[in-house]
């Protein structure tokens, strides 16, 4: 299978400038600098690359939205990888930091940006040392700093650490956090492309997204676009975790069947149990039952199946697992991570938690399930950012596909007991 991001991922010392360059690293810069910035943006558009952080917004289009003639502009690389089940960016940062730097240089050149920040979640402190070292090496080589390779183009890249808040992965919350504030999401509009970091035009891209850019510049947009499905181009890193024999990050071409990922790449279900359900794109997307395991792993196919590709975290759940318990764990996560700004999210996540907890204690009533659905309806799409929607996903999808598991808890519950 075509490997773009993970081609040499386990090569010894890939994180050093020497090895990275030996493998063709930083070759794209020269190519890029021979072109006009807008040509790079056009190429990224033509490649069909979409944001790998979760929302899947076309990357080239995002870059072209920057407010005209407003400077300075900023690039923020979103390395706040916190979506449960997702650990692909960590592997890239750990093993191939130069690839990200190269991608950031290309993006900055294309968007005429002179300052970039890599916002890493606080728990990645270890990776920040690796990243800082790589940045230093790139400086020494003249790939960063003033007048890069004699082009007159200047760029500084800095790492910035968060401090433990899932919500900072939301791009506008990330900006608030980077500006030294609480990671509460901002109102949109204005969108970051118009008023982002320090109220200046800002590009925010996920680590994986930026890492793809050198390939597009080196190999051409067509080559990238030739991979994948009609609307989902290229490859995707998938973090496969849960009840599989070989959990790990795998790079797959868009459109690969989920069955192939679970059974071929990840070795199938652990202990030879049976697949019960899977969450294809991180905890924020609806889960699917085993019956849909043949769904293609791409944006459109997953959407058609009623879920999303999200961040590319495939969480596999076997038939021994308790879906209600798993759902409670996810509600608990969103309750803990809600910033508390919007009433439906702040109050709703906690209420859902209280109810599901009761159900698990056999203290619920049958109508609790309907109530859960209605509360979810009152939360979904009514808040500032998608965190509430994300919390609703596991609840609604688990009820949809595994309603009987909830109902099981009420069999011996006397009517009216709370």
């Amino acid at each position, binding site marked *: 299978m075509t490997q773009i991001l993970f081609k040499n991922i386990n090569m010894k010392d890939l994180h050093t400038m020497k090895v990275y360059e030996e493998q063709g690293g930083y070759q794209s810069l020269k190519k890029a600098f021979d072109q006009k910035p807008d040509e790079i943006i056009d190429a990224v558009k033509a490649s069909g690359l979409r944001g790998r952080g979760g929302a899947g917004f076309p990357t080239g289009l995002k870059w072209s939205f920057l407010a005209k003639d407003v400077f*300075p502009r900023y690039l923020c690389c979103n390395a706040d*990888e*916190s*979506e*449960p*089940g*997702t*650990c692909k*960016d*960590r592997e890239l940062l750990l093993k191939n930091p130069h690839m990200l730097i190269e991608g950031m240089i290309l993006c900055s050149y294309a968007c005429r940006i002179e*300052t970039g920040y890599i916002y890493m*979640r*606080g*728990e*990645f*402190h*270890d990776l920040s040392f690796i990243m800082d070292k790589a940045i230093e090496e790139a400086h020494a080589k003249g790939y960063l700093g003033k007048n890069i390779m004699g082009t007159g183009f200047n760029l500084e890249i*800095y790492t*910035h*650490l*968060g*401090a*433990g*808040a*899932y919500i900072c992965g939301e791009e506008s919350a990330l900006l608030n*956090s*980077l*500006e*030294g*504030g*609480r*990671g509460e999401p901002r109102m949109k509009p204005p969108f970051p492309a118009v008023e982002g970091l*320090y109220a200046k035009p800002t590009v925010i891209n996920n680590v994986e997204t930026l890492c793809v850019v050198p390939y597009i510049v080196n190999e051409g947009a067509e080559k990238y676009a030739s991979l994948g499905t009609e609307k989902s181009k290229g490859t995707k890193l998938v*973090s*496969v*975790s*849960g*009840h599989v024999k070989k*959990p*790990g*990050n795998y790079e797959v071409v868009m459109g690969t069947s989920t069955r192939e990922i679970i059974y071929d790449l990840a070795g199938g279900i652990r202990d030879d149990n049976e697949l019960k359900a899977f*969450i294809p794109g991180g*905890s924020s997307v609806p889960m699917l039952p085993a019956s849909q395991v043949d769904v293609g792993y791409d944006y459109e196919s997953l959407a058609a199946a009623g879920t999303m590709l999200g961040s590319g*975290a495939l*969480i596999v*759940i076997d038939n021994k*697992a308790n879906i209600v*318990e*798993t759902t409670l*764990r*996810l509600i608990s*996560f969103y309750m*803990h*991570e809600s*910033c508390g700004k919007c009433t439906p999210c702040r109050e709703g996540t906690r209420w859902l938690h209280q109810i599901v907890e009761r159900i698990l204690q056999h203290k619920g009533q049958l109508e609790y399930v309907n109530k859960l659905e209605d509360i979810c309806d009152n939360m979904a799409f009514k808040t500032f950012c998608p965190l509430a929607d994300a919390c609703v996903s596991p609840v609604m999808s688990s009820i949809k596909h595994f309603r009987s598991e909830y109902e099981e808890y009420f069999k011996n519950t006397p009517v009216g007991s709370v």
Partner: protein
Amino acid sequence: MSGFTFSEKQEEEIAGILAKYPFKKSAMLPLLTLVQRAERVISPEAMVAISQKLDCSPAYVQSVLSFYTMYHTEKVGRYMILFCINISCQLNGCDKLLEYTADKLDIEVGGTTADEKFTLHREECLADCTNAPMMRINDTYYGDLTEQRIDQILDSLD
């Protein structure tokens, strides 16, 4: 309140941090992290010192730090154990292992050992799901945990 001063080395580090940003308030998290790592706690006095560095109110510093889970207003142990309990780890039996660890250290989850060596916290996903169950102790990630491996890891720390 003037009970907190930065060391000379920290002042240098702070100057380096401030140089990264066009607006100094951006240095909020880095400065809080600096203090947290050095002191294992962020005292009100330190908040005042940071507010002076960044030209904002101490209330704002407290508002920001209380938003993030990695800052502590009560002193934590020399080893901060963040034990992931999120979905991938849960599916792989982290709950029992967390209980095991708490029993081993003879503390409640969230507590600190009497000798201030360990603090054990339940933590949301740490982005190492393919190595679940996992934990982070200070800056190091430990995956594929078992009771034996936990024994080994904790015993190896001095």
